[in-house]
């Protein structure tokens, strides 16, 4: 079955959505990410949507669900790279993705994750 790959980078997970997702694929990603967070005890998830040409209410709900599930599992989710036209449309559609942390690109998204999980990371590093 078709799946969106989830990369493991230390305590974080990285997902780049590069396909026009049908609804089942989006649900699959939501389930897979929740599984991985729990299995690998991940502390953060970075979701890169820079190649997504639209975010409709279904994808928006998926992103909100992932953020909520991550939080319940003691992890943080950051959505990065939303295109300006997508942001305009999403807000007009009526979704503001409340509760979902965002950053402009992968780099600042990673910085945000390290910031949120800073203490833990220093412990590991030191």
């Amino acid at each position, binding site marked *: 079955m078709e799946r969106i790959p989830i990369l493991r980078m230390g305590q974080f997970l990285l997902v780049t959505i590069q396909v*026009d997702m049908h609804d089942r694929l989006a649900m699959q990603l939501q389930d897979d990410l929740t599984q991985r967070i729990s299995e690998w005890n991940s502390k953060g998830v970075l979701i890169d949507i820079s190649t997504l040409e*639209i975010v*409709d*209410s279904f994808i928006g709900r998926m992103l909100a669900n992932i953020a909520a599930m991550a939080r319940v599992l003691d992890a943080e989710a950051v959505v990065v790279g939303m295109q300006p036209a997508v942001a*305009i*449309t999403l807000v*007009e559609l*009526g979704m503001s993705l409340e509760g979902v942390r965002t950053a402009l690109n992968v780099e600042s998204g990673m910085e945000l994750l390290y910031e949120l999980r800073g203490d833990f990371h220093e412990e590991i590093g030191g």
Partner: protein
Amino acid sequence: MRSTKRETLPIATSADVVLARQKVRQWAIEMKFTLVDQTKLVTAASELARNALDHGKGGHMVVEAVENTARTGLKLTFEDRGPGITDIEAALRDGFTTGGGMGLGLGGSKRLVNDFHIESQPGKGTRITVVRWK
């Protein structure tokens, strides 16, 4: 409003919703809509196609290039053979849902287009027509 070109696509599976999005994107680019307008059209198409599939048991989408004396536009018609909508006003309200969604599909897509028309016959189906003008 005069139609200059039209094409019909089936909406029977969630893969068809993806194809419907791609078709609308392709037409919107050909008609030289701005990127924001393309995005709004494709997002509205996605919401309405999913709606026809999830609530209307599938149907089809008609894409049309239209023009009147002043301007050109892209018209999308979604027809399903589902149970119909008994209270259209309620269905257009944000947060109203009979499925598992956010209830943004109808009201939300209405905000993304210029013209929005909905006809529904309980027991027979629903037809939603939207136009975005250039």
